[in-house]
């Protein structure tokens, strides 16, 4: 069974805003029964303010497709169309406390339905421009089509190239056979022969010389460097724990519960990964703020 978050399960078992909306003035249909998931998003938009007064959905699909649809309607209700268009598929996934990599397309479908509904309201044509292929890299959720196009466009010729350009293959490395097959195929198109060699993963090339304490101190230093930006927005961050590749943090002040929290965390994660030279995951701690706990004493 998939490792669904409690939030995904909750939205699947008790979907919000499901069913037909008779007086919808914006409808977005995406997906098809052939693909195994299809979503119809129905909106009631206030013509004066372009605010989404109500949103409903009908979905044919798996648990995460239904949960993503439900989450989407909850997120966008009350937003203006322009603000709603800024909602990314990552926002939908974050709202649900994450989706398994194989299921990220469900959140993409939600975002596309939203774009289609807004286009429908504004009388514009909307075109789906993304094609999905077989999922190759499960660590970073990267499919064959993206890898193939990247290899073709950039004339890549090694697994390392693919890792550097797409991240695919940079994690557990189980998919390197699949990446080699794509390289062989695309390189043959341009008359080259793929020559295989053992991949030296970055992590192994530069073994972390830091011990645990040094690593945690390094993480603190990086967070300190980010801190002023957060404080400018009346927020803050604190390090709670480091467990292997997972870094637990607390968002404090204005950052806590901020709609942009997920985006902020992603930015911090990126910064930490670049600085530490390894893959890490930044997760909001569920144990509550240490600072707050202390201040009650």
């Amino acid at each position, binding site marked *: *069974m*998939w490792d669904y978050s409690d939030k995904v*399960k909750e939205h*699947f*078992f008790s*979907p919000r805003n*499901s*069913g037909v909306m008779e007086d919808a003035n914006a409808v*977005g*249909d*995406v*997906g*098809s*029964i*052939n*693909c*195994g*998931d*299809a*979503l*119809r998003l129905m909106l009631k938009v206030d013509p004066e303010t372009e605010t989404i007064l109500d949103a409903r959905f*009908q*979905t*044919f*699909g*798996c*648990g*995460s*497709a*239904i949960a993503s649809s439900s989450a989407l309607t909850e997120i966008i209700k009350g937003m203006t169309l322009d603000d709603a268009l800024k909602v990314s598929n990552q926002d939908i996934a974050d709202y649900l406390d994450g989706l398994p990599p*194989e*299921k990220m397309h469900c959140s993409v479908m939600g975002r596309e339905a939203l774009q*289609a509904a807004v*286009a*429908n309201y504004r009388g514009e*044509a*909307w*075109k*789906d421009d993304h094609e*999905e292929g*077989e*999922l190759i890299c499960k660590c970073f959720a990267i499919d064959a089509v993206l890898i193939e196009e990247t290899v073709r466009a950039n004339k890549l010729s090694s697994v390392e190239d693919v890792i550097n350009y797409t991240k695919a293959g940079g994690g557990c490395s189980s998919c390197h056979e699949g990446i080699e097959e794509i390289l062989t195929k695309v390189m043959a198109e341009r008359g080259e022969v793929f020559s295989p060699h053992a991949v030296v993963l970055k992590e192994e090339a530069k073994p972390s010389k830091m011990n645990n304490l040094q690593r945690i101190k390094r993480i603190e230093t990086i967070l300190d460097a980010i801190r002023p930006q957060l404080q400018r927005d009346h927020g803050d961050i604190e390090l709670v724990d480091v467990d292997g590749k997972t870094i637990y943090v607390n968002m404090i002040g204005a950052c806590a519960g901020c709609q942009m929290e997920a985006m902020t965390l992603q930015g911090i994660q990126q910064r930490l990964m670049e600085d530490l030279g390894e893959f890490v995951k930044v997760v909001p701690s569920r144990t509550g703020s240490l600072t707050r706990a202390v201040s009650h004493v």
Partner: protein
Amino acid sequence: MSKGKHMDGIYLDNNATTRVDDAVVAEMLPFFTEQFGNPSSMHSFGNKVGLAIKKARMQVQALLGAAHESEIIFTSCGTESDSTAIWSALRANPERKEIITTTVEHPAILALCSHLEKEGYKVHFLKVDEKGRLDLNEYRKLLTDQVAIVSVMWANNETGTLFPVEEMAEMAHAAGITFHTDAVQAVGKIPMDLKNTRIDMLSLSGHKLHAPKGIGVLYLKRGVRFRPLLRGGHQERGRRAGTENAASIVGLGLACEQALRHMHFENTEVKRLRDKLEAGILAKVPRAFATGDVTNRLPNTSNIAFEFIEGEAILLLLNKFGIAASSGSACTSGSLEPSHVMRAMGIPYTAAHGTIRFSLSRYTTESEVDRVIQVVPEIVAQLRKLSPYWGENGPVEEPDKAFAPVYA
């Protein structure tokens, strides 16, 4: 049969795996403790284990109806048995570059064959009709001296549909071709008498018949040319090197004996419950149908397609009611395509994504079946209410037109 002190819940996913029978566990336990010897050793510690393995080999032989106990080779799983069989035939016949199999095999065969295609072999994938049946005339035409091996499953894991492997083995034999069958789903559910067939090799897996996971068998008919996959020690007469998984082999032996003893029960009582389940659901749920060849299938399997809803969603709701089943839906596998078996039978996409497999065992009870018949219609109705393809009381007229993605 009592369920004993086991997990609550209704387990109808016995084609995925089965629970190890209590008596099988009891039989195995001494082989982790006092009977720890290596059967290859000269001393008495090893000797007793060797005798226990011999007994197990004869229990497997009896279930398969094999002529000799030495035809039973213990492996680690069904997949290893399948790979051993195919690689053996290819290595024993290096001049033959073709393989015949079917489009509906288990990935243990399909993925290997796709890989062999990349290595330059020609693989013929036999098609099936809408009920999952093979065309033996198409098969006959492919039986040339270029073919190294035919590998055809005995029973399909998703629909339970049986293939005429005995007849197909005769045809292969007449053409001088080695015949292998992946019988992982069939062994223990239908009677077998291999000594009176032309089947050269057969794969079985312990955990499908109430033995533990991690133990399998390759049946190898005496005289069939063989090349081992694993070379090393002299275990299994040098045909499968590696220290024997003694406890699991002993467990598999007893599980085979029990399967043979329950063969009549499986084909009468289990079958009756399966038929009741299927009829009960189909009577209550509109726009649903059983897939596969319902007149010629395993006694324990029912695969039902529910139109306009998606299988994973059905499974999640079933799970909430404590009911375990499985689905051919794309979403359960993480791929975008629904089950290759449903696609091969030409089941339309409107139904292929919503197929659910119920597979019973001799532990399934009447009250469990009644409960599932009660729950399934509610679940289907609940999901159809969410589906854009379903109207008030039935599918929307011409679903393709009613639901029209702008980019389609």
